[in-house]
């Protein structure tokens, strides 16, 4: 079909977490501009399987930009060149015929490579487990409309809650810092009345778990905000700092 592109891919291949990896070059011929980036990789993989070569491993699931499973650093950019877009929603029309595309995994000590482009982001789960919840059980809760929440607060909390936990913030940050992710959750609960009883204990527990996982510190370059597919704002990080210092120096 006309308008199709021939591309060269340089893909990071790594057998497992303990193996050392390297870049391998593949041809991606006849790529339609209507394909998503992951569909382009599907096509390459199908070609590899036909040749009995090991297909490229990458994480993906919903392909609608909401599950947060897809990742990839494409030509140096987590989730590729478009703003507010996950890799699964990136289309090949963002590239040109003849391009060479370098594809790497998210790189961070806290995100060890599982295989090829897939990394282990369970550190994020452990941070959430440390305090990313309201300690209430099922049942016995008040009627939903007994808690009135000003719309501006609800909307702002929602903005923080849209984080999909993909880890692009860590991948983009020169320090591999997870603060945008952690602060989004801390912020959501810090703003809502439901989060108040555990507000400071939560902030402390989540920050300390984040440190334990080996993420770097924030140097306020705001690369995370620029690359966040859900456009989570760095004001969340400021709020987290406030919550944490409050927890440590005043409320603790």
């Amino acid at each position, binding site marked *: 079909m006309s308008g199709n592109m021939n591309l060269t891919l340089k893909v990071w291949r790594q057998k497992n977490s303990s193996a050392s990896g390297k870049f391998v070059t593949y041809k991606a011929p006849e790529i339609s*501009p*209507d394909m*998503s980036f*992951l*569909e*382009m990789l*599907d*096509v390459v993989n*199908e070609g590899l*399987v*036909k040749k*009995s*070569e*090991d297909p490229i491993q990458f994480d*993906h*699931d*919903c*392909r*609608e930009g*909401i*599950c*947060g*499973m897809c990742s990839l650093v494409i030509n140096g950019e987590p989730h590729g060149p478009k703003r507010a*877009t996950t890799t699964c*929603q990136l*289309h090949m*029309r963002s590239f040109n015929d003849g391009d060479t595309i370098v594809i790497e995994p998210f790189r961070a000590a806290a995100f060890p490579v*599982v*295989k090829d482009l*897939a990394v*282990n982001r*369970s550190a994020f*789960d452990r941070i*959430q*487990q440390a305090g*990313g*919840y*309201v300690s*209430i*059980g*099922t*049942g016995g*809760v*008040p*009627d*939903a*409309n007994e*808690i*009135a929440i*000003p*719309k501006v607060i*609800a*909307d702002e*909390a*929602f903005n923080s*809650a849209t984080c999909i936990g993909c880890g692009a913030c860590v991948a983009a940050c020169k320090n591999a810092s997870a603060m945008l992710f952690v602060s989004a959750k801390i912020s*959501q*609960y810090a703003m*809502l009345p*439901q989060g108040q009883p555990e507000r400071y204990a939560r902030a402390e527990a989540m920050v300390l778990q984040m440190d334990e996982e080996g993420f770097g510190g924030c140097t306020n370059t705001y690369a995370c905000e620029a690359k966040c597919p859900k456009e989570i704002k760095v004001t969340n990080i400021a709020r987290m700092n406030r919550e944490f210092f409050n927890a440590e120096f005043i409320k603790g």
Partner: protein
Amino acid sequence: MLDAKIPSGPLAEKWNKHKFDLKLVNPSNKRKYDIIVVGTGLAGASAAASLAELGYNVKAFCFQDSPRRAHSIAAQGGINAAKNYPNDGDSVFRLFYDTIKGGDYRSREGNVYRLAEVSVNIIDQCVAQGVPFAREYGGLLDNRSFGGAQVSRTFYARGQTGQQLLLGAYSALNRQINLGKVKMYTRSEMLDVVTVDGKAQGIITRNLIDGTIESHAGHAVLLCTGGYGNVFYLSTNAMGSNVTAAWRAHKRGAYMANPCYTQIHPTCIPVSGDHQSKLTLMSESLRNDGRVWVPKTKEIAERLRKGEIKAVDLKEDERDYFLERKYPSFGNLVPRDVASRNAKQVCDEGKGVGKTGLAVYLDFADSIKRLGEDTVAAKYGNLFDMYRQITDENPYKLPMRIYPAVHYTMGGLWVDYNLMTSIPGLYALGEANFSDHGANRLGASALMQGLADGYFVIPYTLGDYLAKIGPAPIDANRPEFAKVKSEVEVRVKTLLSLRGNKTVDEYHRDLGKIMWEYCGMSRDEEGLKKAKGMISDLRADFWKNAIVLGDNEEVNQSLEKAGRVADFLELGELMIDDALNRDESCGGHFREEYQTPEGEALRNDDDFAYVAAWAYTGDNMPEELHKEQLEFENVKLTQRSYK
């Protein structure tokens, strides 16, 4: 006849009475029970968290890298609840009634009433967890009308309701993981159920990182593994969504109920080519202001497809607003199944648009003229952006192209009122079971059902079973575990020995095309019979010529896919059998032979007001049909009409 164990007594008192009749587990004994929960979507996460809160030891499994990724997360529209906050006449009974009617009278009154009843608790629960639902300026919760409902009972969180609800359930799960009551196994795929003395007492899983085949024992097993829409290859499901857990359970004795009931959603972004891996849904709220049309003649359609003319250049008399023409009173707002079927029909007549000819227009030009572009953007801006991102077309200037896509499967594992399958101790929750939506699911009801099952049904009904079997430990070293484990290992080996010439994806695509063509939006006997043979051949070919690469002891996507597609190939055949058996049209099941003179689904309540529950009898053997008669004591069965 199957017994669904629906409690006796008046509809509104069944659940309360039942809750009292259920046996309880002594609080100090709860920690002696181990519960296995497979899947961490809305049903699985809420069940795992709630059961752990009660004191049971829970082991939870998901194939994704984190429990938060389950596909419940992708639900956009909202969640229904009979709160009647807007004071517009809603009630538990009305939600019950709408759900039964929407399901074309193929669901159980008792289950559906319970669902409507606990719907109100769900909203309370989620708000208490900090789920940021949309609110009014007064600070209280906002509601909207959804999917043609006459009352506003849908709670929503922008277009990301599923995400916010799942993150709420995930947070409850995380709390229990932190407390040590839930042990979470991620990147673990369930490959079989282990039964001991006829009771489900464990599962066999494969660790997707290193291939370890593991045995896990428990007093009960809960399958919360979602639907099987990916049997069609292209669907709005996630890439990983699969039927394996449910199908393996089916082969161990759990009945599969109404597998032919599939919901096809009318407003999806059309397929752009063979590379297409999945379909993206756009909220059906778009039909509130968009007008659906195709060119009046094949010739014009052809010129459009070739790009010789543009849609905007067509005059009014060259356009066929087929929904408005055929359904003057409901117009573009006819139910999902009707809208989908009509779109397929016009495309089959050769009037489809887009490069592939498999699309119809959804046109906002009139709305933009009437309301202004700003108003339209405020209402649908995010959907328009999404459409533009995927198609590279500007829906403010050009009409959108839409086409139906498989979205949800109403069928699933047969469960009784307690959500227990036909294997004692094996439960199915959420989309994995068949119970509440009949032949068609209403918009914003999937989230409701998943959470109802997990938060408010299973914590009661499971205790009854556990109290009866007692807390004696279950031993994973029993020979039954070793036997099933070795069968799983053999199957893995067999798959890995396939070094043919056709990729697993190619088989999957072929299967999807057969299912879509012959068991999709409309079916007929001839086509179904043909499809049955085709699938059977395809399956035989798969086990000869598929390519499965690599070893078990590594991350192996080739092996994972092969196992799932092998199960889809078997399920596909059962879906065909079920569709062939059901000589009527109802909801998502439309048999060409059974339609009213106006072309609407024609039910046969005398012969088919039953649940078709299929029992596995052996490889390549016909499945055995068990019927559960549906009793309607509180609603009158009527014919739907949208003229």
